[in-house]
């Protein structure tokens, strides 16, 4: 089998920082993906480029998996789906929601590939109850880069499975993923919105609301003093047909016509400043009226997907996303310290997200653990990087960790402090001969 065509192109993650010229192959044949390997050059698979930092491209050959996105098997009785790793979640939602099936876990964008969902072990608004995506993965087929293809699951090559789930593509190229969809009775979400005037109230509302299937909070991270941690918490349940308007009950799976706006050009870097973001946050806080309503899955799960290329609003220098999780016992103090520091500096971050996470996942490098996660965007500049170094210290002191799928800038000691199972991950890579064979810009930076 000849090497697939490849070309050198500048690549970034969703944050558009950092940028790197990469050799890219885009195989159309899984056999080519399985063996894709330039002599003596390491590999990394890339999905739809929705991880924010530098996880999806590498110093060797970057393998674009989007042409390998076929749905291969579906069991109408159990919801068990096998698809190629390059399949987009958006397509799975479009195909299966009208048939009464929904992804068991969905991140905040549906423009991710299933392979990327496994590699990042993504979590959603239901993590406190449902766990992360890989908790619903029955098995994967993984190409080890030397022609070997292994099936991995909790029962088969379980060590490699645990390293692969959340392993950022550093244990091989995912070819197929088998996971179970969950049954739903409509394409709507019954949503309940609650305002929290400060952080303590927000945490109390999360703890009291643990029985809700979905929960997430938008937190105004420019609010300070008595307003510190001011949030809007949004709970959600899959709606039953009787929850819908009488006119809609006969067609519970009807979807609104796709709408979409696009950010046509890079915003000037000055467009997002303390004033504009603060205004936006205040307006947003007031627009989220407390109460209940029934909404389509798109605005509930994927509000930003309605604006194509929204990452351009941070301008051509790009942005970084900072997502940490703090253990439950240190969450209140740690979050207070983080929010205080962010509000003090006043760096623009809008639509910061706060969420209660459930138990730790089995993946060695999986991000979620019991506690609270906070996610924020910042323009990529020196001021931000200095701020994030200070936030790192607060997170490390609280015993927390950062999410690799978002990260573009932490350094190796911070990774080691947050991921105690890193040594097991290294051991698996050595055992299967994967160290050095799979490398990304992220793994080089973090000395993985």
């Amino acid at each position, binding site marked *: 089998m000849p090497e697939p065509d490849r070309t050198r192109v500048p690549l970034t993650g969703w944050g558009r920082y950092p940028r790197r010229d990469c050799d890219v192959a*885009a195989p159309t044949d899984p056999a080519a993906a399985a063996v894709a390997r330039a002599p003596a050059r390491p590999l990394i698979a890339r999905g739809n480029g929705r991880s924010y930092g530098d996880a999806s491209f590498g110093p060797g050959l970057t393998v674009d998996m989007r042409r390998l996105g*076929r*749905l*291969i098997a579906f069991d109408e009785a159990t919801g068990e789906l096998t698809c190629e790793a390059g399949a987009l979640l958006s397509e799975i939602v479009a195909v299966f929601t009208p048939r009464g099936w929904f992804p068991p876990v969905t991140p905040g964008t549906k423009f991710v590939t299933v392979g990327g969902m496994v590699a990042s072990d993504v979590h959603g608004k239901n993590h406190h109850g449902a766990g992360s995506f890989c908790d619903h993965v029955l098995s994967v087929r993984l190409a080890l880069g030397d022609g070997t293809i292994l099936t991995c699951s909790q029962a088969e090559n379980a060590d490699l499975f645990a390293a692969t789930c959340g392993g950022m593509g550093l244990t091989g190229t995912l070819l197929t993923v088998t996971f179970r969809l969950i049954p739903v009775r409509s394409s709507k979400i019954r949503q309940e919105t609650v305002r929290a005037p400060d952080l303590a109230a927000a945490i109390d509302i999360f703890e009291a609301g643990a029985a809700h299937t979905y929960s997430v909070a938008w937190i105004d991270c420019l609010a300070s003093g008595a307003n510190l941690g001011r949030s809007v918490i949004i709970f959600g349940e899959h709606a039953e047909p009787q929850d819908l308007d009488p006119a809609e009950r006969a067609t519970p799976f009807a979807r609104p016509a796709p709408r979409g706006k696009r950010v046509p050009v890079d915003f000037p870097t000055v467009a997002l400043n303390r004033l504009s973001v603060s205004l936006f946050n205040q307006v947003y806080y007031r627009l989220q009226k407390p109460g209940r309503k029934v909404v389509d899955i798109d605005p509930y799960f994927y509000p930003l997907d309605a604006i194509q290329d929204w990452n351009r609003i941070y301008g051509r220098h790009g942005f970084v996303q900072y997502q940490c999780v703090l253990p439950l016992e240190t969450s209140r103090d740690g979050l207070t310290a983080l929010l205080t520091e962010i509000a003090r500096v006043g760096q623009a971050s809008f639509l910061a997200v706060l969420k209660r996470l459930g138990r730790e996942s089995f993946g060695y490098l999986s991000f979620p653990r019991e506690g609270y996660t906070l996610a924020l965007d910042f323009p990529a500049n020196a001021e931000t990087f200095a701020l994030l170094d200070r936030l790192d210290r607060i997170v490390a002191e609280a015993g927390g960790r950062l999410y690799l799928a978002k990260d573009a800038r932490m350094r190796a000691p911070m990774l080691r402090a947050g991921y105690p199972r890193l040594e097991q991950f290294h051991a698996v890579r050595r055992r299967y001969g994967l160290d050095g064979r799979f490398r990304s810009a992220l793994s080089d930076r973090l000395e993985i």
Partner: protein
Amino acid sequence: MTPKSVLILGARSDIGRAVARRFAESGASVTLAARRAEALADDLADLRIRYKVAAEAVEFDATDGGAERFFDGLSALPDVVVMVVGLLGDQAQSEADLDAANAVMAANYTGPACYLLAAARRMGTRGSGCIVGISSVAGDRGRQSNFVYGSAKAGFTAFLAGLRNRLFKKGVTVVTVKPGFVATAMTAGMKLPPALTAQPSEVGNAIFTAVTKGRDVIYVRPIWRLIMTVIRSVPEPVFKRLSM
């Protein structure tokens, strides 16, 4: 027309896959034809799962001279036949190696044209159907950078025009498709201007619309019609001096 069945000749290509999906989305049953048809199982499963349509795969090689046998072997003559086969080749290599030149000409003209002649006779007899040929803007004028490929496509374009004329009174339509640049495996590694480059799904959509609306010649991105009009209008004494 609303096609009930479509045959994709060259189904493994990015455009072939996109066309198959678009027709399947409309409910048409799909026959995928390509070399190593047994390796199309995952593509068939994908079409069946996504669109709940019937899908089958048949062995096909555009340059094997076996068109009559191929169409006789089909379980039914489809409503629409889409010829996607093409080979870009490498101009320098074609000039140095005549076998390479011959392969490009066969894959872009003689092979596809013979298969479509066989399809056309059967559709003409039936008195209905639609034939779609993927030609190229490269066939609109010969240029030094790709004239082996371009001339074969020019031949194919002329063939489709004549076929359209021939079949008009028999109730069979013929669509000539000139995609312009398309982001596919065939063009991977080329620096293509985004505004002039269509995604395979756009080509699939454009072909489906052309078939259902009975169009004759389509450029997938309209800008290409303008570009090629300009390129065609340059007088030959000038054109021959240009480096294009």
